[in-house]
């Protein structure tokens, strides 16, 4: 990615707003997520024309229309594939996929896991409201077991996907989670996602005020969030709580919440977050922590270096080209067995 160091083109969040009226419901979590992205983009030192926002279908997928960048509002579930094509064709672009929980994990689940497996350098932001917003309130693959929705009036009888588990299971190298209104952390995460080479998946717990209001309130609520969210930072101990008196330890093969200063636990016993370790074991456990047994992990849970699909593709092209005997299509057509008719 070519950096744009020219100060005269220093961009601001405003430069990333398009002239289209934003049509999300007032109070929808999507507004805040977009604000965080629009604030994060100017900090990336990438010229505006190099951003491409690509989405599927859903409330969240309207996102590209509101961005003054190149954008492509695709078809339901297929944004990963469209974005993979764009990035593979031109690795110089910063390609962002905006998607919902249904778009990415129901109809588009297959594309998501394969994109992650290939490690195409996309930044995938999943707006997880645990509901189908655009189609007005049917349950989604992330709706909690038993959730009552328009298509599950007696409660769902399906186990939900946990995006982190899915992504890490598909050999994901970067996974982060946050909550829609957490502006500061979200900007931090988007910056890191952009820097990370390879597929970065960011799950944002998003509130749909209309069809699934307060789905994340238990952990997002201001009153309780310090006690119910664990903010992970690479190299820092996993301490949380209003009084920063709780932490995570590894006991046997399992994680456990302990109180510092109680039962003989000191700060030294608390796990230190290592987002960069290749072994997905602890990352998976962290991603799967659920309230009330655990706090919900937010921040960058996993960030592991690995070569990207599009880079390997270009590298292979360079290598094969170097050894090729062909300069032009004429050479190719004349290759192999030919004969002359006189």
């Amino acid at each position, binding site marked *: 990615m070519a950096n744009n160091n020219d100060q005269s083109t220093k961009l601001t969040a405003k430069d990333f707003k*398009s002239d*289209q009226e934003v049509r999300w419901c007032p109070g929808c979590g999507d507004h805040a997520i977009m604000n965080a992205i629009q604030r994060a983009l100017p900090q990336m030192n990438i*010229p*505006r*024309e*190099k*951003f*491409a926002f*690509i989405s599927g*279908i859903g409330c969240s997928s309207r996102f*590209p*229309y509101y*961005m*003054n*960048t*190149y*954008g*492509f*509002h*695709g*078809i339901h579930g*297929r944004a*990963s*594939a*469209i*974005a*993979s*094509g*764009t*990035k*593979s*064709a*031109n690795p*110089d*672009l910063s390609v962002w996929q905006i998607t919902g929980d249904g778009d990415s994990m129901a109809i588009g689940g*297959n*594309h998501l896991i*394969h994109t992650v497996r290939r490690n195409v350098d996309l930044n995938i932001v999943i707006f997880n409201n645990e509901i189908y917003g655009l189609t007005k309130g049917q349950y989604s693959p992330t709706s909690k077991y038993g959730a009552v929705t328009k298509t599950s009036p007696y409660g769902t009888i399906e186990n939900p996907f946990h995006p982190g588990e899915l992504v890490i299971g598909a050999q994901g190298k970067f996974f982060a989670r946050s909550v829609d209104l957490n502006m500061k952390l979200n900007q931090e995460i988007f910056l890191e996602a952009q820097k990370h080479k390879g597929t970065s998946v960011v799950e944002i717990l998003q509130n749909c005020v209309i069809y699934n209001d307060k789905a994340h309130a238990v952990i997002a609520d201001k009153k309780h969030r310090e006690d119910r969210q664990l903010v992970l930072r690479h190299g820092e101990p996993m301490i949380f709580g209003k009084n920063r008196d709780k932490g995570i330890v590894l006991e046997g093969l399992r994680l456990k919440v302990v109180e510092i200063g109680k039962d003989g636990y000191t700060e030294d016993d608390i796990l230190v977050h290592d987002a960069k370790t290749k072994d997905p074991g602890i990352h998976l456990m962290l991603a799967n922590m659920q309230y009330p047994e655990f706090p919900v992990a937010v921040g960058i849970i996993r960030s592991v270096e690995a070569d990207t699909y599009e880079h390997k*593709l270009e590298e*292979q*092209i360079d*290598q*094969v*080209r170097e*050894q*090729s005997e*062909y300069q*032009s*299509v*004429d050479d*190719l*057509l*004349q290759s*192999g*067995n*030919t*004969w*002359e*008719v*006189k």
Partner: protein
Amino acid sequence: MSKKTDVIEREEVVVRFAGDSGDGMQLTGTLFSDTSAFIGNDLSTFPDYPSEIRAPQGTIGGVSGFQVHFGHKQVNTPGDYADVLVAMNPAALKANLKLIKSGGTIIVDQDSFTEKNFRKAGYQTDDPIKEDQLEGYNIIKAPISTLTKETLKDEGLDPKSILRSKNMFALGMVYWLFDRPLKYTEQFFERKFKKKPKVIDANKKVLEAGYNYAETVELLTPTYRVSPAPIEKGIYRNIDGNKATAWGFIAASEKSGLQLFCGSYPITPASEILQELSTRRDFGVKTFQAEDEIAGICTAIGASFAGSLGVTTTSGPGLALKSEALGLAVMAELPLVVVDVQRGGPSTGLPTKPEQSDLLQALYGRNGESPVVVIAASTPSNCFYYAFTAAKIALEHMVPVVLMTDGFLANGSEPWRIPKMADYPDIHPPFVPQGEKDWMPYARDPEKLSRTWAVPGQPGYEHRIGGLEKDELKGSVSHDPQNHERMVYLREEKVNRVVQDVPDLKVEGEPSGEILLVGWGGTYGHLRTALDELQKEGHSVGLAHFNYIRPLPANTHQVLNQFNRIVVCELNRGQFIDYLAMQHPHHTYLKYNKVQGQPFTTVEITEHVKKLLEA
């Protein structure tokens, strides 16, 4: 090499090689075709194989065949019936009985004529010759397996490898029968097994042994000679339809200066296009083997969005999966080529057999008013030209194009006079020049109605596209009813205006008269041969063969007007005829259809036309 008694000059000959799918019949047939091409025959080939890789050995279902038709004159089809059949086992004999000319020559591996194999092939008795009433045929029973083993007994090869080369013994026999040199096939061994001198040696020995055997046993007389064909001067090569398609796209990439991106999912009989393009990293080709057909087309659309030549290749079932995304390309007005190598349907149908039953799917198989350009190649080698042309139209008109071929063209091969790229036109996509004032994404070229193309990375032209209805100029989302209707019209009219690039329809044979044969796509060779034969017999017949389906050539009506009756011949239940009758209602159309997963035979067509003329 040897002196021959009783050499018969022939205008043309059809040879069919048949055996178990593990017997290497496709290779045998290909090697024979290559040699025939090198010595100057014109030819056409048709591989006919089962969809299972190794169906139960020795059974009819497992028989794999390769037919080659070569001649001293122009050859347009792989031939209806074989003059010579090589049958490596009883099942191969039984499966191909109907495809041999009455009184033709049949070479069988006598060693395979065992009780067990007779039962597997479904023979009631132990004498297939009698059971199938083949007494009038020239049957050559040769102990091919035994003699192959004998030839290689001192080579230190394992018994399996030894038996595997028995196809080369059979090939040697056929070379003698048609007075063909061995050297091209020997050169092939040398290239193919460069690092295995032992294998080169063994194959050469067996080939030669077969040749010598045929010479020694006088059973094989008379032998045939087919002299070189008087074909146009130039440098030639053999090419099959799938390779020609892949190369056509590479040529379009060179002529447009755009990177070629192919997102695809493997499917018979289209996979070889993706395979060939994957090899062509040296031309900067980016191939993406997607997780399914939907991802295949979507990656191609994503690459188009980024400014590449986006291509996706598939067959009928895959085209069905791509339909929603193809609609997205229609709406986004991005260039895209979708190749449909048709096979027998519906559903999984007959994966390895040709049919023309996807035409209506290509034309209409999408939600909404969703017009695309549809063109069809008509010979294995002109897949190159039509792939190039499909890409040129897509790029210059900012429109999706479906290129139809079929299993017959894809796997069939023929000699091809290699074109010079200097004779091909440049391709000029409508990119927005830098510095354009007040550019609007959906403003159109007044002639073509194509929109201009700004690609991510170009400063100042940031814009959004997508599947929601677009404002006529700005391209932003619009729900305005009048705007929608205008956009529907514009997208359709844009496709119609491609007619400016479409050459006039040619009539072969009589320019006017009683009967006009009409075909499209892969049936050209058979229709053309039928036409020649009907004309030779003095019938008033013409042939109009369509490569451009949507839009149809501008002179279509005039051509149709010159004939009393129009007979539309298709390998389906009549899809083109319905389409044609819809576009040009004021003609009398008759249909002639075949849906057997097999090409037409020339005889079928000539007989049908003669019946019509008599009635």
